[in-house]
């Protein structure tokens, strides 16, 4: 079976890196990679030389049995792919389930990495986690770069500088990593989340948990946050507004799977913030947690910088590709036997990932 | 009461000695890490085999044909000696893990 790795559009990442290519070959797979696919991530075509055939895009699409691409393939690409092929990517069917029908119509077999359950066992294939982790780290670096101030406290001969106050909203994987990174840089960190279970996790990273009482919990949602009541949202907005006034940096990661992201920071909160502050909105692609967020843009509102970017992982393509490739490898390990597909649809991971079954 | 006083007057040094010995016994065992509880117990147990001396004295003073005394005394020696030798030996084995490193 031939696995083909496509070059991404508008993304420097690549689905397979040389270190992992070796292990894929050990699974019995043959590899093909589009020329220049890894360049943006710091992997030269030469690095793949002994491991994969480096070919042109069209050849690859025609010859490979299975195509690996990180970003959801657009219609233009799908139109090129012959029926019967396998696709591994993230299709986000929970946002728009028409994608499944479309794929079925095209007779393509699709595995969606973002449908892999968030269980302990599936951790090693969980691209949401590995990418969110990078995003959280990067969010803090971006914020620190845009902030007009120091993060750490500094008592110097030219005056004493207070540590930056960082507010993290949503303490999922990205949020926790943001907390850890901000703390590393010396900021005073507070965090919010609707799931009270994460309180302990937030504290385990040395940050303060800001509690809004009365959050709706739903253990059945498998760890994902559930939508909250109006009253709760109001009280939360109030508390956030109060905290935001003193925060120098706000990093928002609050998402509810399959829905628009909740708006937690309305425009007038932003107006109350000190000039020079920074908001990094990782939920930008699903509407943003801040009312003023423009997806994929950096705007300045009354001196407050608002960075709307949900794809920060793409900004650190080398490690991001390495982690993604490992996730892919681990998924393929349970799908492939001796170089051929051997799907066990009883397996919870495979049955979740395979959206066109 | 008089008997008691008389006894004390006859044995005052012995009584002081006994009391000091008891205090010593208490003092010697203080702040023992709990890992040493068992070896210490075992070592103390071996020392309590000192009772064997009674059996030795008994036999040494028995008539050579007093087989009751000799027999029972010898049994006592066997038991006491097992206690003493076995006790110290097993303590030693327990303590092997404390051999100084390097």
């Amino acid at each position, binding site marked *: 079976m031939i696995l083909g790795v496509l070059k991404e559009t508008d993304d420097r990442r690549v689905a397979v890196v040389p270190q992992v290519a070796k292990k894929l070959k050990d699974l019995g797979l043959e590899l093909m990679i589009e020329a220049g696919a890894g360049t943006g991530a710091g992997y030269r075509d030469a690095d793949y030389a002994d491991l994969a055939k480096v070919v042109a895009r069209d050849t690859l699409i025609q010859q490979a049995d299975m195509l690996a691409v990180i970003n959801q393939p657009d219609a233009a690409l799908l139109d090129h792919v012959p029926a019967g092929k396998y696709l591994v990517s993230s299709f986000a069917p929970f946002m728009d389930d028409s994608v499944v029908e479309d794929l079925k119509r095209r007779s393509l077999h699709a595995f969606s990495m973002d449908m892999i359950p968030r269980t302990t066992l599936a951790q090693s294939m969980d691209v949401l986690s590995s990418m969110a982790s990078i995003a959280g780290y990067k969010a803090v670096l971006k914020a620190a770069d845009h902030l007009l101030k120091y993060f750490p406290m500094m008592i110097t001969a030219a005056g004493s500088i207070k540590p930056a106050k960082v507010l993290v909203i949503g303490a999922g994987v990205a949020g926790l990593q943001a907390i*850890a990174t901000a703390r590393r840089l010396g900021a005073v960190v507070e965090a919010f989340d609707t799931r009270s279970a994460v309180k302990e996790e937030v504290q385990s990273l040395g940050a303060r948990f800001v509690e809004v009482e009365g959050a709706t919990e739903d253990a059945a949602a498998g760890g994902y946050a559930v939508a909250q009541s109006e009253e709760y949202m109001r009280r939360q907005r109030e508390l956030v507004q109060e905290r935001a006034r003193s925060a120098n940096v706000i990093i928002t990661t609050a998402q509810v799977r399959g829905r628009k992201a909740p708006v937690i920071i309305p425009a007038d909160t932003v107006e109350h913030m000190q000039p020079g502050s920074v908001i990094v909105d990782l939920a930008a692609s699903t509407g943003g947690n801040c009312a003023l967020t423009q997806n994929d843009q950096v705007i300045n509102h009354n001196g407050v910088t608002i960075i709307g970017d949900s794809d920060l992982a793409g900004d650190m393509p080398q490690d991001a590709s390495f982690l993604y490739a490992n996730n892919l490898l681990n998924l393929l390990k349970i799908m492939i036997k001796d170089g051929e597909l051997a799907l066990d649809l009883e397996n919870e991971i495979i049955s979740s990932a395979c959206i066109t079954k | 009461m008089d008997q008691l006083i008389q006894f004390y007057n006859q044995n005052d040094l012995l009584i002081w000695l006994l009391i000091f010995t008891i205090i010593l016994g208490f003092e010697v065992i203080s702040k023992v890490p709990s890992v040493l509880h068992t070896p210490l117990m*075992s070592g103390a147990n071996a*020392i309590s*085999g000192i009772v064997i001396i009674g059996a030795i004295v008994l036999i040494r003073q*028995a*008539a050579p044909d007093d087989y009751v005394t000799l027999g029972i005394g010898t049994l006592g020696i066997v038991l006491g000696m*097992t206690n003493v030798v076995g006790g110290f030996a*097993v303590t030693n084995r327990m303590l092997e893990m404390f051999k100084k490193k390097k």
Partner: protein
Amino acid sequence: MEFQFFIDVALLLAAIMFIIGLRRLSSPDTARTGNLLAAFGMGVAIIAMLIYPLHSATNNYLWIAGGMVVGSVIGQQAAMKVKLTAMPQLVSLFNGFGGACAVLLGFIELYKATHGQSQPGVGELLIVVFTLLVGSVSFTGSMLAFAKLDGRVKDRKVTFRNHQYLNMAFIAITLGMSVYIAVAYPAVSFGLVIAFIIVSLIYGFSFVAPIGGADMPVVISLLNSFTGLTAAAAGLIYDNQIMLLGGVFVGAAGTILTVLMCQAMNRSLLNVVIGGFGSSASSIAPGATGDKVARSITPADAAILLYYSKSVVFVPGYGLAVAQAQKDCKELDELLEANGVSVKYAIHPVAGRMPGHMNVLLAEADVPYPKLLDLDEANPIMDQTDVVVVVGANDVVNPSAIDEPGSPIYGMPVLEVWKAKNVIVMKRSLSVGYAGIDNPLFYHERNHMLFGDAKQSMQELAREVKEL
């Protein structure tokens, strides 16, 4: 004259050796030499008493020699062959022998007295009877303790309802008989003596019967101090100073030791002796269910295990983060390294609650990167590791992932800590981790649970290691 003087001095030296020996036995560094010193003292005492000029000595050295050889061989062989885990029962057995020896001595005295070979006074008789009574309890009590520890007797088999009252009755009867024998003498028949001995022996069984198996070490220590007292009493019978003082000394030391052992278990001595089974549960791991028993370990024991090992691997998990114990862990690491122990950290990829969680913590504590091993580096060295310390990790060291196909985490690579020679798991209870599944590691034969908040446990370990 001179000869006797030298022997007297030798006996004094023997007594001093006992004291110093026991003293040294109470600290790990000197324990071995302490034991040897006490043993040497015992040798000196025995030899001294073998050659001590006694009046009307017929000596009968052959009998003595025979007994000594047989006893030595038995003791030596038993001590060498016993498994490490069976040592406590062996000590109990030995202690019973000591008690039995005292019983025989007392028996002979009463035998002589009731057969007209001697006419002891009330005081002497009281001493003899005391020897017999306490010796008997020590003897049969130790035997039962041995049987219980060895698993030959199940607790419930030997206990009656309201066993305390039975024991009280025994106390009353034996004490009554003791006093009667001493006072009524010479109007005392040999049969009564036999009866007294039998009742005393039965009381010994009955005394130990209601005490739970887990409390046996305390009981053995108590019985050991009883044996010491009988030796002292025998010393009075034979007017022998070293027996008297040695016995009193061991009696006192044994008593304090017993109290210390109770304290270490957070119990009172009374509670142990009459408490019976109810309380013995407390020394078994909290939350142990069914057949599986998780053995717990005290910080002191864990510290020794760590201190005397060559290689230690810490396995941090989410609990380390919750307890914020990373710096304390580093401190313990430094202490161990300073004592020549090689220390590493095995980091499981999903330990904690976010990718790299453990890295963040350990970086905060300034653990050098080369000490961190990932899964692929850690597993191959597990079997050469003396102690693995699992600090608040659970799912990532769960053997079900490897040998229980039905488990929700079956197939996930985990840190195979159970391959190490010893495992210590630090957590607050036996409860589950994130994945919500039970962990058979806790009940593994080479595992010890160190219960408590990880930060506190770490600090206690450090304190104990410093004391070594």
